[in-house]
């Protein structure tokens, strides 16, 4: 290990140090409330260090790869996790402080993030697998974090079982790939897949393994139950950070490793994209519980993301990363609002939100910005993200897919408007009373909402991502 390697693995090493300090801090801190501040400060420092420029390079004989695009994506994840942590503070204080389970929450989330960093930086399937498992196992622990809730335990079990199944499928796919190409390195594998049923099977297996993580139809069955049962901060983490990292990984696999099988996976993505959008949207229509609702909404959004992978070029990479960045922020705003309202009133149903605007205007506005961003209403950033995904489909001439996509936007607008209808249009005799939330959550949600309002109109952010995206 020398100074150069440290610089290349900066994100991972700083994060690992953060986790270790946090472990020690837990021993030496009597007032567990202070752990929140320590964790936020350390993670903030880690996020800022991550923003410093980074070289391109490989480590451990190409097992670990990094380049500006991967670093930028790690930064997006960092900022997302930082916002989630900020919003989670009040939840930790009210629910977990009495149980003295404060530092574990932060350590588990950060370990999962560390796994994701290794996963998306991997250049070798063993590295990918280790990263994937490190990313998944802590989340399963987090999902069952609320030990006195049966639903929470259930969601932890469901998550770990489906994760095990998906890992099994991924490994099966990888072993087929290894049999064909004789290598586990991404660079050694690509270009070795001639037309054969075996290679198609391998592709489908690897794809399915990742599809579980992204909760694409037909691998989405765990999503709703896990999202509903897990504590809201964990759901928020699961739906944005976990999904975002998995999409990025899938993108690297498809564009890099399976580049010469593009004629197979474009059809696969085309079909799965349509199916995922429709299933996600139709199931979301009838949901009352907001966390379940967001689960199906995130399934539908995953379908949109798949649309952006259809052309394996710079355009696709930048469109997908841009969309993920916006999607992360939108979901954080919405889950933040759900969590704050849930903490204050223990209400998680859409009908409970009736008359919300009249008692809590700011949180309703934030909720509206997040929902409109997911629905893709300009001038909020989500519209631009979706538009660029459509452009990717258009560049391949898939006009039907665009039509189906926009049709799905209309369907999704219906159910997003249901929440807006409840909180803005309706009145209630028994509305959620006005509540005050702590400063961290306020700042977190406000920052994310303001970024959402400005990010679409401010084009240099997209230009920046686009300039990094010519790596494949």
């Amino acid at each position: 290990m020398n100074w150069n390697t440290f610089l290349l693995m900066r994100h991972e090493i700083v994060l690992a140090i953060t986790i270790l300090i946090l472990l020690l801090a837990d021993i030496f801190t009597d007032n567990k409330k202070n752990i929140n501040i320590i964790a936020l400060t350390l993670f903030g420092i880690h996020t800022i260090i991550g923003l410093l420029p980074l070289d391109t390079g490989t480590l451990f004989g190409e097992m670990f790869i990094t380049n500006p695009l991967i670093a930028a994506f790690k930064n997006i994840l960092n900022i997302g996790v930082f916002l989630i942590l900020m919003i989670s503070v009040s939840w930790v204080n009210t629910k977990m402080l009495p149980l003295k389970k404060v530092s574990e929450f932060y350590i588990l989330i950060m370990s999962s993030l560390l796994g994701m960093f290794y996963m998306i930086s991997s250049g070798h399937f063993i590295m990918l697998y280790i990263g994937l498992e490190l990313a998944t196992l802590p989340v399963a622990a987090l999902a069952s974090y609320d030990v006195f809730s049966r639903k929470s335990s259930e969601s932890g079990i469901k998550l770990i079982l489906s994760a095990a199944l998906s890992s099994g499928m991924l490994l099966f796919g990888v072993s087929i790939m290894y049999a064909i190409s004789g290598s586990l390195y991404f660079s050694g594998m690509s270009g070795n897949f001639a037309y054969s049923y075996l290679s198609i099977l391998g592709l489908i297996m690897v794809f399915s393994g990742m599809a579980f993580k992204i909760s694409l139809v037909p691998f989405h069955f765990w999503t709703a139950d896990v999202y509903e049962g897990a504590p809201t901060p964990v759901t928020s983490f699961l739906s944005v950070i976990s999904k975002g990292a998995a999409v990025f990984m899938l993108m690297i696999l498809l564009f890099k490793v399976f580049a010469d099988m593009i004629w197979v996976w474009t059809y696969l993505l085309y079909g799965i994209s349509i199916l995922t959008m429709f299933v996600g949207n139709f199931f979301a229509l009838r949901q009352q519980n907001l966390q379940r609702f967001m689960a199906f909404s995130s399934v539908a959004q995953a379908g949109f993301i798949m649309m952006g992978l259809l052309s394996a070029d710079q355009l696709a990479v930048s469109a997908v990363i841009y969309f993920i960045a916006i999607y992360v922020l939108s979901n954080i705003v919405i889950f933040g609002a759900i969590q704050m309202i849930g903490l204050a009133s223990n209400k998680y149903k859409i009908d409970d939100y009736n008359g919300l605007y009249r008692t809590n205007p700011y949180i309703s506005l934030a909720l509206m910005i997040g929902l409109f961003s997911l629905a893709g209403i300009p001038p909020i950033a989500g519209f631009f993200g979706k538009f660029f995904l459509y452009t990717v489909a258009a560049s391949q001439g898939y006009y039907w897919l665009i039509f189906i996509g926009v049709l799905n936007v209309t369907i999704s607008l219906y159910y997003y408007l249901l929440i807006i209808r409840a909180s803005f249009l309706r009145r209630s005799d028994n509305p959620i009373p006005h509540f005050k939330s702590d400063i961290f959550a306020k700042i977190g949600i406000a920052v994310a909402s303001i970024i959402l309002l400005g990010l679409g109109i401010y084009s240099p952010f997209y230009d920046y991502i686009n300039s990094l995206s010519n790596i494949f």
Partner: protein
Amino acid sequence: MDILTLFVVVPVLTVIALMFTKGQNNYRVVTLIGSIVQAGMAFNLLYQFLQLKSGGNTDIMVFMQDYVWFAPFNIHYLIGVDGISVLMIMLTSIIVLTGTFISWKVNDLTKEFFISLIVLATGVYGFFISLDLFTMFVFYEIAVIPMYLLIGIWGTGPKEYSAMKLTLMLMGASALLLVSIFGLYMHSNPDAVGMTGLTFNILEIKNVVIPESVQIIFFPLAFVGFAVIGAFFPFHTWSPDGHASAPTAVSMLHAGVLMKLGGYGIFRIAMYLMPQGAHYWVVPFMILAVIGVSYGALSAIKQTDLKYINAYSSVSHLGLVLLGLLMMNEVAWRGAMLQSLSHGFITALFFALIGIIYGRTHTRIVSKMGGLMTIMPIIGALYVIAGMANLGLPGFSGFVAEMNIFVGAFQHTDLFHRVITVIAVSSIVVTAVYILRVVGKMLMGPVMDEYKDLPPITWYEKTGTFILVLFSLLIGIFPFFWSDIITEAVKPFIQGII
């Protein structure tokens, strides 16, 4: 800041000012100041435009500004106006101004009401100034979404249903629109390598010959996508429900301005960029348009609710706009654009008056009212004026516009166009029936006891309605001033399509 971008900036500033304002009265004053500034800017724009044109400027678009927005896709913030957009901007600013007056007494969530109203106006202004398909689409959607809140929160009757129906139908239409925009984009440069070189710029796309087979696919998408917001026949159902449930100012903006986006978009994008597609599809669309004209007029007879009567009347009159556009000659197009303008003022006046009457009688059912002329003479007289203007009495704007459309339509000598035109003309008679019926029942006749002590018309209602009457008269009395502006703007567009 250039003269056109101000039309986006000033409303946004008004919204920001409203956010930091406190006090019921201050909301109104801030909005009023904002909308007066907008109206002033609109007239300044008209003046500058006329100066420029009388100086011999023959460009299709003037005051153009071009800023690169998303460079990788060649998306620009490209703006510019011709005579038609200038007049549409003027119409919008007047209706926003009068709408502010008419909604003076909105008491529930006043601040939010005005913010939504101004956001809606921002979208409309932006739509009329933009020359880039992407920018235009962005503004179109900005204009549509506030309608949901405006109808849903401040509306009456089945407001949640109407608001949802309106939003979903218009968003569904934008699905078609978006596909056609991408179709145009992907064919905007035959020499393009990959995505570089493609453009959303309307004026540049016009210079490219888009293959006829492509036009045939994408023209109907663009046409229907825009026509839905212009209440095109089978897709008009959102409009009566939306109008009936909306609060007064929103009905005014909705019928007066928002529905004009349809005809304008067809004129500016669908027909201009895809003329061969237009010729291919003209027959089925024309049949649908004429069905809309007669169906709207006939339905208006059957309605009992004042707002439904005028909503169906709008379906009929905006059907004439589409019909005029589909006639594809200069006179008819001039008529269509004049009709857009004139219908904007007249319908806004109608809805303003209906709002005033409803605010006093608390019913909009025609048969439950009678003798209002003696109780509310000013409102009654204004209502008669609006009715006469609507049925196309000479001296008002409606006459000039419809005359142009029908003259243009009769320039086609074949049997099909003749039949269509005759059917459309006969709808005017029907218009007279439903307007005179309302005037007779509601305004004349014996005075009903329960309406004897209605409060008199207030200053803000007077100001609002008088401004609208004034403009309807201005178009009717000086038709050539307006039609010259429009004719000159239509010319470069019609050349490509004949």
